């Protein structure tokens, strides 16, 4: 019914943007060991995308759900909570 894209949905949310990224990816592990690129399809915020064979991360839209951290069995993702007060702010939850 709504047919909104993920970026459109994220734009409805409230975020306090933290300039310094809370997600880091070990490209070496991705290149050498990853079979399925699970982060590209499983992330509900579509934070991950592929650019010139490298994984790019757009941390600003992160919902802090932790799915990528659990799903990446190669442990290529270094994921921490954003600094206090930053990141997603659920107004309803």
């Amino acid at each position, binding site marked *: *019914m*709504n*047919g*909104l894209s*993920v970026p459109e*949905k*994220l734009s*409805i*949310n409230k975020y*306090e943007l933290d300039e310094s990224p809370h997600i880091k990816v070990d490209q070496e592990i991705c290149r050498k060991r990853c079979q*399925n690129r*699970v982060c590209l*399809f*499983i992330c*509900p*915020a*579509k934070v991950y995308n592929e650019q010139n064979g490298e994984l790019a991360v757009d941390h600003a839209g992160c*919902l*802090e*759900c*932790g*799915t990528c*951290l*659990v*799903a990446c*069995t190669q*442990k290529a993702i270094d994921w*921490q*909570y*954003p*600094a*206090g*007060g930053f*990141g*997603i*702010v*659920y*107004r*309803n*939850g």
Partner: protein
Amino acid sequence: MSDYDAIVVGAGPAGLAAAYRLAKAGAEVLVIERGSYPGAKNLSGGLLFGRILRELIPEFPQEAPLERHINRYILTFMTKDSTFNLDFKGQGFSQEPHNGYSVLRAKFDRWLGEKAEEAGATLITNIKVDSLLMENNVVKGIVAGEEEMTANVVIAADGVLSFLAEQAGLRDRYNPANFAVGVKELIGLDRTTLEERFGLTGNEGTEYAMLGYPTKGVSGGAFFYTNADSISVGLVMHIDHTSSHQVSPSEVLEDFLAHPAIAPLIRGGKVLEYGAHVVPEGGYNALQKLFTDGLLVVGDAAGLGSNNGFTVRGMDLAIASGIYAADTILEAKAKGDFSAATLASYKKKLEDSFVLKDMKTYAGAAAFMKGDRLFNAYPKLVEGIFTSIYTQQSTPKENLLKSVLKARKESGVTYMSLGSDVWKAVKNL
């Protein structure tokens, strides 16, 4: 001498229940929350079952920002073209004390935070706890930025990912088999339309649990329930299955919302918020260590969640674990001993209560829910049977048994697997 009797990391239901209980008993307790208010980081796709909260705060039904009490529960088997509902409406659920409520966590947790503060707990927000302060494997407090704060006991209420429990060596790195990803939309709908559409009177509410098509064959399910003037709708999908099926939860959610049975229910609604969170789904068999010297783990951080397909529980288990953690700390304070040996009574309290008893009852449910047939073949089977029963043709109707046998054949379910699944369902649910 420690700064506090207890430092609670994380202002969700588990942490705040513990803080409330401790503060009420006169203990010095600090709650640290990384969001700008309790609930700012919290999300739920389930109902709040009120029994244990009533024991902690008897006046909560009058005070808490509850959306609706749920008196109608619908279990739906869904395929692309059909829905089969088990629809239960209990008038008993409309009477005080109500069984379950829909809540919005940014509102509910904030209220619970205020209750804890009124009781005497100190709450600080916008602070991220970086790590535990440890001495010789004993937890002595927390580290946040440059600051260190000490406590006799730290309560790790830091949610399903619990970095603190991991640092203390109480849990392994995440096994995808024990977690699900939940994606959720909150859809605003004016109150009159909502009540007319769902046949609701006053503060009544309806909850749906849906299996099959919603998750595209991935083990998990959909949830759908009414709030005061909005609808919470989303999916919960096991992470290992989602990975191996290579599907995108956000795309699967879109298809689900467009299903002919769902689209009319949310028609005219406006998306107010989109969220996601990992959910503990491993059940009893996936529980890890819940305490060590100077540390207790509660709620999602402890893996306390229960899902038997009909009912998904987490918040009431979280609140209960917070209460038992607080009671354990009060006992330890009386003894002046905060070692693991004393704190072990926390585990005992959980075991003696509905928390671990219920989780144990449904211990097999987590594995049972992983069965492919539950999400693919059975909704298909149900569709086949009822399509045949209700379809009127120009040829004479076959009897019911024949219809069932034919539908079974078409669904690909063997007698052997049917028998074994029924047995497993009876045993585990």
